[in-house]
């Protein structure tokens, strides 16, 4: 238990490290996607948010859940904007729900469902509105659809393509939240930047486990 918990804390910290690395690599791409119909700041917001989240988790004590709570608050404050608020709340909510474990498919799925509910309550976006929800919701559903005893690592990898398909689906959606309907039309043919970056966050977790158990 001690060790498993220590392991989980280290997983959270390494997740944030990989996520930050991935976001730095994709900063320009996310900015360009956001510039299609938005204001071009999504890449910068994600990098700024993750840099702060990574530092916060490094400096915080407590369970993996506690680290996530600290990371989410730091992400929201440093990131700012819509994605700072929403992803910050998502990470914090997941952290609260996971608390000090256990960390398995059931608890993780429940935690992510709570996070999705928070994002929906705050942002009031529906699936199909071309937001990060269109990647998050299929992923959470795909987790939930697997047998409870599936190892989390396996279930996560199995669910990732659902997020990626969700991103692809946003290409043919017209943005409805936070932007003018007409501006939304300009984004037709391009994926939603928030859905893309959320998928990078999910993929980063997979990278942590790859490192632990190279296949």
């Amino acid at each position, binding site marked *: 238990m001690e060790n498993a918990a220590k392991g989980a804390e280290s997983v959270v910290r390494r997740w944030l490290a990989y996520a930050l690395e991935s976001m730095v690599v994709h900063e320009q791409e996310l900015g360009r996607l956001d510039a299609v119909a938005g204001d071009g700041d999504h890449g910068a*917001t994600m990098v700024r948010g993750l840099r702060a989240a990574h530092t916060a988790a490094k400096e915080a004590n407590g369970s993996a859940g506690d680290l996530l709570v600290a990371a989410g608050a730091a992400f929201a404050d440093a990131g700012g904007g819509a994605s700072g*608020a929403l992803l910050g709340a998502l990470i914090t909510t997941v952290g609260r729900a996971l608390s000090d474990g256990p960390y398995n498919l059931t608890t993780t799925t429940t935690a992510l469902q709570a996070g999705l509910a928070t994002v929906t309550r705050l942002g009031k976006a529906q699936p199909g509105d071309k937001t990060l929800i269109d990647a998050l919701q299929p992923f959470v559903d795909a987790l939930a659809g697997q047998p409870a005893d599936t190892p989390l690592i396996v279930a996560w990898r199995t669910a990732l393509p659902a997020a990626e398909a969700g991103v692809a689906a946003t290409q043919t959606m017209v943005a409805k939240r936070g932007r003018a309907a007409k501006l939304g039309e300009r984004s037709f043919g391009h994926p939603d930047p928030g859905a893309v970056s959320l998928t990078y966050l999910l993929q980063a977790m997979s990278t942590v486990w790859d490192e632990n158990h190279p296949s």
Partner: protein
Amino acid sequence: MTKLYNDPADFRAELIEGFVAAYGRLVKRVPNASGVMAVDAPQPGKVALVIGGGSGHYPAFCGYVGPGLATAAVMGNIFTAPSAEQIYRVTKAVASQAGVLYCYGNYSGDVLNFDMAELRCQDEGIDARTVRVTDDVASAPRGQEDERRGIAGDFFVFKIAGASAARGDSLDEVERLARKANQRTRSFGVAFAGCTLPGQTAPLFTVAPGQMELGLGVHGEPGIQSSHMRPAREVADLLLATLLSDAPPRGGASVAVLLNGLGSTQYEELFVLYKDIHRRLLAEGLQPTQPIVAEMVTSLDMAGCSLTLCWLDDELTRLLNAPCASAAYTHA
């Protein structure tokens, strides 16, 4: 293009330091927060008007902090709403028993963060309320006015709310007047070239030669529609016709006018444009009241402009004409 910066990551912190250093006679820094407050804040018994949003729109938002205008401004990163945490800290620094009014342009990120801060403040017993500016007619059709974005109309709503707060009105009254000002304010704009974020080398969007964008956003969003470029007098027609076809009910004949430059459009061009706007306003039987032709809500170095009309009545006119002082707008 942004040329003057050190580390782009420090841009916001450095600009706040520079702003406070320059205008220390009007503002001071909110300790431990990304924001500035009037030198005389907090003022016991007076409603605090807290405005804010992303940076890159100067004079919005910090340039409007001072006596008779905003009590404080929360400053986000370039084009990025400030976080709920920063809004909360700034609010705590300026709130009095009389309460707090948040005023800002209606954007997803700002709404999310200001709403979270409002809830937290209310939980702590601060009477915090919100009036969002929704003046941009391009961003949602009639009947969905609440969905519209806020652009240069921000200024009139801030001015009216700030004057109401300064004379000691109750929060109910400040909120009512801000809401009324917003309901009577309409803007529409055109863009000729996109802006470039600090550290980037390409603009957020480009406009093809001979084209312009209609219905611009002030965050480097392209317009809602492309159109061919035309002479100034036709641009005047277009801006005015769009606003007049969306005039608020029972507007009356007196209008406050703001012809706003976005950043790199020259003032001289704005005056050439204003010539025809003024003529046509008079021809429509409208009376321009204290027109302003200036850069009031910019979008970094974007080229373009927007026209804002605020249909006045006596109480709004009084507040618009009330004295105020701030780094960017002083009225004696």
